[in-house]
């Protein structure tokens, strides 16, 4: 454990002493190497680090999509390692939202149906006012009955953001949400995530390799070799880029 930050009791999600090992013997890779980090509630946190630093693994394990080799991951006070597949699924459905880099929407469902998918899977109606407000926030009211294939990439990601927030989850995890978008659409999606956190007090954890994207967050945590190396509040693209250059002097980030 290196720069261990104090574990915040108000963390929406956190991991302690998290270790994730892939493979064994010669091919063993320690993607997470005893990391402890919390993601405070009502904040927009970005996870940054060079390729192979373990940032995606951290997100997957914190979100209950993957399991840790050792250590513990929590959503609120729920320890994920103690849950079986079914409970983990229900937890994801009820308390976690996701925005992936691509392929966020079911092609067979309309925009409206995609937004309420986690609620439908839970057999719940959700909060109609909240969903209605969300639709306005993401600006897709006139597209509700379209199919995803009729939307642009940026619009699709905005639907994904609305979907992620629809069930009022404790935390929304976004995995390179702007990776497939042009810069203008990307800005829209990031602005949307930031606004939702600030205006409605939601929690977002975003993995990115883009300093400009990270600058939208309230705080950036830096990973290298599966360890937490730094945290930066009120980031700007320039500061983030500088920090990244220190971390990965040779490679930098992917274009």
């Amino acid at each position, binding site marked *: 454990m290196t720069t261990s930050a104090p574990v915040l009791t108000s963390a929406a999600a956190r991991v302690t002493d998290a270790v994730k090992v892939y493979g064994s013997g010669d091919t063993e890779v320690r993607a997470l190497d005893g990391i402890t980090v919390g993601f405070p509630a009502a904040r927009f946190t970005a996870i940054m680090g060079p390729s192979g630093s373990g940032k995606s693994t951290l997100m997957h394990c914190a979100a209950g999509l993957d399991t840790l080799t050792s250590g513990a991951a929590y959503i609120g006070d729920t320890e994920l390692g103690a849950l079986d597949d*079914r409970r983990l699924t229900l937890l994801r459905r009820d308390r976690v939202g996701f925005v992936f880099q691509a392929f966020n929407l079911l092609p*067979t469902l309309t925009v409206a149906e995609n937004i309420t998918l986690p609620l*439908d*899977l839970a*057999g719940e109606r959700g909060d109609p006012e909240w969903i209605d407000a969300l639709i306005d926030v993401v600006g897709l009211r006139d597209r509700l009955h379209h199919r995803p294939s009729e939307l642009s990439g940026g619009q699709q990601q905005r639907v994904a953001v609305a979907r992620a927030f629809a069930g009022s989850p404790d935390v929304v995890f976004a995995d390179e949400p702007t990776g497939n978008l042009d810069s203008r659409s990307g800005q829209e999606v990031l602005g949307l995530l930031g606004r939702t956190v600030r205006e409605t007090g939601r929690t977002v954890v975003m993995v990115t390799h883009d300093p400009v994207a990270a600058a939208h967050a309230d705080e950036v945590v830096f990973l290298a070799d599966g360890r937490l190396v730094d945290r930066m509040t009120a980031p700007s693209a320039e500061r983030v880029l500088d920090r990244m250059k220190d971390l990965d002097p040779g490679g930098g980030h992917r274009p």
Partner: protein
Amino acid sequence: MNATLRLSAASLRAHKRRYFGTFLVVLLGVSFLAGTLVMGDTLKSAFDSMFGRATSGTDAVVRSADAITTPDDAFGTREPVDAALARTIAGLPGVAAAVPGIEGRGQLLGADGEPIGGQGPPTLAGNWIADPDLNSYQLAEGRVPRRSGEAVINRGAAKAGGLEIGDTTVLRTPDPVRITVVGISTFGGEDGMGQVTFTGLTETDAARHLVPEPGQAASIRVRADSGTSQDELVRTLRPALPEGVEAVTGQEITEENTDEISGAFLSVFTLMLLVFAGIALLVATFSIHNTFAIVVAQRTRENALLRALGATRRQVLGQTLAEAVAVGALASVAGLAGGIGIAAGLQALFPAVGFPFPDGDLVVRALSLVLPLVVGLAVCVGSALHPAVLAGRTAPLAALRETAVDVSAASRVRAVAGALVALAGVAVTVAGVLAGPSTALTGLGAVAVLAGFVVLGPVAVTGAVRVLGAPLRRISGRLARRNALRSPRRTAATATALMIGVAVVSLFTVFASSLKATMDQSVSRAFAGDVAVQASGFGAGPNGLSPKLAPALAALPEVDTALGLGQGVARVDGSGRALTVADPAALGRVLDLGTVDGRIDTLADDAVAVSRDEADKRGWAVGSTARFTFTDGTTRPFTVAAVYEEDGITGDYVLSRTAWEPHRLRDTDRVIAVSFAPGTGRDAGKAAVERVAARYGNPEVQTRQEYADSSAAGLDIMLTLVYALLALAVLIALLGIANTLTLAVHERTRELGLLRAVGQTRAQLRAMVRWESVLVAAFGTAGGLVLGAFLGWAMVEATAGGTDSAFAVPPVQLTVVALVGVLAGALAGWRPARRAARLDVLRAIAAE
């Protein structure tokens, strides 16, 4: 190896699982086909050699030359010959031995008192011929019958009835004859001639019990001196024979026998199996086509890349076809092995279930190998042809496009063309039913209707799945509905396979139940008595009733009228017809013949009553004259004295007993119609009849409804066999559904990953895949039911030939078919659902 083949080989290796379904489907179809061919040949050869062995010692047979055949009896009825003729023949030069063959019917009772056999094949009895060369049966144990009351029975009958040498039992001829088993016989080395039972009696006993007049024999069997050929023997015999009696060589008799079994029975049986193999393979083509269509769609980017890199259309097309050839060839070869295995298995299985098919090596002709191989390959390559052409047409630019999912929708052209074909088909079918009816026209229409349904499938699928899926309100069901609708053509093609299977099942169900209803209706309409008495069993099994039973019943105080209906045969104006022989005066008291022109109760000895249908066909009315020729060679005119409406029990001709008496062949009644005396209760009357019947071979005493039902008893067995044969086609269709779903699951990996990530439980995912399977199956089943019911109606009407037939849609059976179809759909979705649920969420999301 050139580039195309190398790519095919690599692709096959990489996607073994994708083609497994296709492999299995072709294998099953080819196995069925090869198994049928091999089994047919094997049975034929075994029967031929069995008959050859059984009659090998008989050099000539002397019998009446004329055989009157009727539409229901192709073998024909011959007049007996004088048994004394044997002595004359024995004295001729070149003749080593000549013995009369007295043949009749006799059903044995087993050790438990239950009758042996009679369920289809006949129960025969005859004189035990001492000369082993002239006897079809060989003594295997014990001794030959010497004293009256002794008998040799065939081993099959002995086993079935638990009878052993020394046992005493009853032979129903149909009058009960007590016999003691003194010997056990075999037929051509087998336990019997199939399921036929045979009891050999002394010549005196046989003459007394089995034929109407002592001294009658069915034929004289002759053995030649060594050095006299069969042809020479026949030439010697001919001048010595009375008029109307012929001599034929043993060789010809063997050929007649084998023709009857392998020609008439086996070839119909084999043909029927081949038709069902064809249906299975037709169903398979849809499944195979679908697999290749999906694989090609999934490979669009790969194929586009190949095209972009310089592969020609022909090379891309060739790659897909080469894969089809490889899968088809492998599966066909495996299917051949499977088919031979099936034939060998059945050969071993039949005796185990009491079906003594003769032994013999498997006969595998070149045709039995080449035909299934060619058909399997053709089905596989033919089904892949269209997808392969589409693969070849892939635009190089498609490599750059995002999605590779087949979202083919139904076109307007398809809707119009399909509707036109289907409507034309319906029109032609209906025209075929109304005009004529013409079976050919109806058949043509049926094929067009089927084609129309196939073309219309993708058009209908959207509406149908919405309707069928409407009850699915939960999220998994809703998602399943969307998934089923996303590629109408694929869903329709998958369902079409099942549709064809279900259509054929429903067609036979409807046809059989209509046939039953027709029989039931015509029998119950014509029957005006209280109970009917008839021998149990069906087909050639029942031996009829003792002629003494009807008078005995009539003597009961509880009985008003007991009318025995005897059977006769004659050539009427040149064509053989079965006759009913009865007392005309009593006829009207127990039968309702409907509207009768003329008078039937006073039917004279030179008069006949004819059914309305037959009279119309022949252009007769009351007063017309018909020429009757009997087996004894006499020909005389009969006047049509009555024309009656209801022929359900009597058939087309009724003759008085006195008119038939001089020409009689067998003294048995087919059925006795009984009406009770006034004031007799049904139960009391039935009990009284049963008490008397018990003394005459214990035939069944049936109420009106039981009697009507029993007339259609054989139909249920046929239907069961048809269902069993169709099970394979339905299985192939279900494999097709499972295969399509598996491919779809593969194609939707990322989507499934996403669903799991946002909270779909494994159970929900499984339910989603299974519901999709159920929806596809329900669509196919619904289409099949509609198609089958319509074609069933057409078949009923077209084959009815103008007679009034009942069309019955059996609600219970069809509901069962529908439920089975839908449940089977759930079963087909089981494996794909499990596979889908096992997907690792993270890997699924990341999948390309």
